[in-house]
């Protein structure tokens, strides 16, 4: 469950065996929890175990999402990181320094210089203008007036609020208020940003907009973000990695794809059931290695042989550097063989449908529908990384994970392998029968 131990230069936040228990004699409760008492049993004795034995590491520059249902301890966890709450047991390193042992004064320094926070209900100061709100972190640090104002304005501009400096928060819409909250955190210049359900109070459209903006900012600024949400779609969109939390415990840590394709237990599986997979999974995560590739110098006979052996109706043609040249189709190849041509150049379809590995399934859906051959996944330099057949795409979109069902040994994390493509007996239906990939085997 824990990440592999990485060096502190990589891990900006690192929790080891972290506990937080509310109630009388919390230490004794921790002992009981360690000895296997359940959270519910503990609750009967009047104590709430909000965080139980949590270990995780947040790497410098990543967005780490903590995800779980209401009451699972997310807010408590995030409040341990900036010292709003004291851990009952365990250690919590922020930039190599254990938060648990710090004096109030040292803790304030950490909050001023290293960690800032964005709140669910914005927590803006209503009596201060937008600019004064954004400058708050710097004011606490006693930065001089000019620097304060300059940096606050800069942060406000970053979130698209230039021109609103002199308004009061009460005059702004919800989305704008949270941008002020974000600007306040950005202006203070800390490397770590804690965001506790920062977008949950916003309506869906605004929320999306804010997510986009956050990802945009993150691209430019490269802060380290600990983001909390109970919305899995949000978690999957934003998170470089996601920690699933349940009843105070972290039950799985992994990338969106890992969690989606390989849930650690039923709880996680249930959770990911109704996630909008189309917006989460990327082309790269479901693409497969092509069964066979044709070198651009090969002739019609070689192509024909390869097609017959692999029962393919088409082939992808690549050059020496595996850059995609195009596709050739069975009928054209047969024709060329018949006429004893020794060159393929005339029959190569040089404009096959291609997609980037980072595109989401939603984005490649229509391309896939329009293309008679599988989509080619290429990188910036045109190198063929993999292919996505319609059946693969449809399987990935249905949440029961049939993608890698036929060959159970396949590791879901790295995407299914070639064999699953041409295996006979993949589910058939009207859409699938239109699939060109394994036609010659079936319909003759």
């Amino acid at each position: 469950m824990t990440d592999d131990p990485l060096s502190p230069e990589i891990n900006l936040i690192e929790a080891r065996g972290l506990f937080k228990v509310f109630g009388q004699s919390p230490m004794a409760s921790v002992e009981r929890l360690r000895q296997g008492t359940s959270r519910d049993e503990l609750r009967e004795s009047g104590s709430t175990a909000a965080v139980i034995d949590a270990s995780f590491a947040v790497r410098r520059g990543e967005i780490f999402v903590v995800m779980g249902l209401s009451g699972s301890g997310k807010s408590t966890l995030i409040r341990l990181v900036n010292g709003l709450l004291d851990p009952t047991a365990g250690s919590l390193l922020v930039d190599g320094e254990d938060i648990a042992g710090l004096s109030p004064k040292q803790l304030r320094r950490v909050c001023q210089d290293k960690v800032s926070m964005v709140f669910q209900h914005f927590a803006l100061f209503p009596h201060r203008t937008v600019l004064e709100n954004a400058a708050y972190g710097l004011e606490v640090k006693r930065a001089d007036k000019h620097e304060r104002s300059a940096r606050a304005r800069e942060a406000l501009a970053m979130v698209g609020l230039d021109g609103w400096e002199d308004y009061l928060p009460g005059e702004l819409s919800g989305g704008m208020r949270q941008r002020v909250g974000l600007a306040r955190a950005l202006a203070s210049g800390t490397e770590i940003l804690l965001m506790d359900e920062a977008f949950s109070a916003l309506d869906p459209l605004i929320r999306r907009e804010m997510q986009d903006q956050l990802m945009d900012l993150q691209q430019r600024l490269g802060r380290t973000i600990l983001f909390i949400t109970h919305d899995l779609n949000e978690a999957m969109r934003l998170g470089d990695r996601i920690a699933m939390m349940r009843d105070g415990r972290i039950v799985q840590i992994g990338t969106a794809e890992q969690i989606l394709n390989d849930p650690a237990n039923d709880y996680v599986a249930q959770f990911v059931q109704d996630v909008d997979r189309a917006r989460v999974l990327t082309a790269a995560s479901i693409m497969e290695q092509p069964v066979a590739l044709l070198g651009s110098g090969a002739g019609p006979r070689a192509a024909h042989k390869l097609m017959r052996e692999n029962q393919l109706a088409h082939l992808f043609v690549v050059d020496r550097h595996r850059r995609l040249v195009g596709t050739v189709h069975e009928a054209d190849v047969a024709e060329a063989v018949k006429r004893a041509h020794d060159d393929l150049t005339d029959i190569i379809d040089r404009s096959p449908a291609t997609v980037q590995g980072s595109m989401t399934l939603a984005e490649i859906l229509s391309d896939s529908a329009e293309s008679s051959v599988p989509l080619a996944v290429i990188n910036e330099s045109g190198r063929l990384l993999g292919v996505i057949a319609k059946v693969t795409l449809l399987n990935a979109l249905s949440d029961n994970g049939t993608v890698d069902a036929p060959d159970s040994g396949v590791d879901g994390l790295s995407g299914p392998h070639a064999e699953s493509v041409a295996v006979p007996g993949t589910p058939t239906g009207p859409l699938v029968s239109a699939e060109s990939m394994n036609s010659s085997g079936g319909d003759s």
Partner: protein
Amino acid sequence: MGPLDALPRLQVGDAFTSVVEWIEGNLPWLLDTIKTVLKWAVNQLDTGLTYIPVLVTILALAAIGWYLRSWAFGVYTLGGFVLIANMDMWDESMSSLALVIVASVCAMGIAVPLGVAGARSHNVSRIIRPLMDMMQTMPAFVYLIPTLFFFSIGVVSGVVATVVFAIPPGVRLTELGLRQVDGEMLEAGQAFGASPWQVLSRIQIPLALPTIMAGVNQVIMLSLSMVVIAGMVGAGGLGGVVYEGVTRLNLSKGFEGGLAVVILAIYLDRLTGALADRAPVARALRVRSAAE
């Protein structure tokens, strides 16, 4: 013979007396300091207020009223204070005003820290509350006995009795105001590394200001209501006028003195109300309700 008769008579009053006597015997320096400072403050303010030509003071008060509230209030102030001068109550009114101001400042000076302490700690709050209940319900006259004991007849006794009587709403409303501040505001302060003092002074108090100002208002009103009682112990001012009216059965004088108190009271009440409305938070609240 009822069972209660078996209980020996508890000497509650005597116990209080011995506390008072102990203070007098052991803390004379404290009593002297209080006496000197208060006497000096009231006299300075009183002399200052009466030194300025009457018309100038009236115009200044009216201007303040107009500026902070409305032109109608300015007109009221003008008329009210002209009437006071016309009734020959000017000097008495100014010395009462001086007493009320000094007493209110002292009362708030004590009440705010107590309110802050109460808001920060439930234990402190548990101790303060019954004390405040007692101070508020104890008949005001009773305060006169120990104060006379300590400070003898004169304006200082008047001020001290007034302060004791006026403190409770100041403490209560300060504590209430601070407690009402949204916990998320405090968290936001802490999350950015603000010290407890920074949280208190830059977040909590500004946000609690409307409630604290309501406390100031009540303190001032209670102080004014003590003016007459203070007049009985020789604090002079309008209280003296009313007291004289009572003892000599001089109806017209008593009424005029009372009317002057009312004019002062309305002026101070509306003025503090206007001040509360000018607090940044009050402005923010108006902005929000206008937006919704």
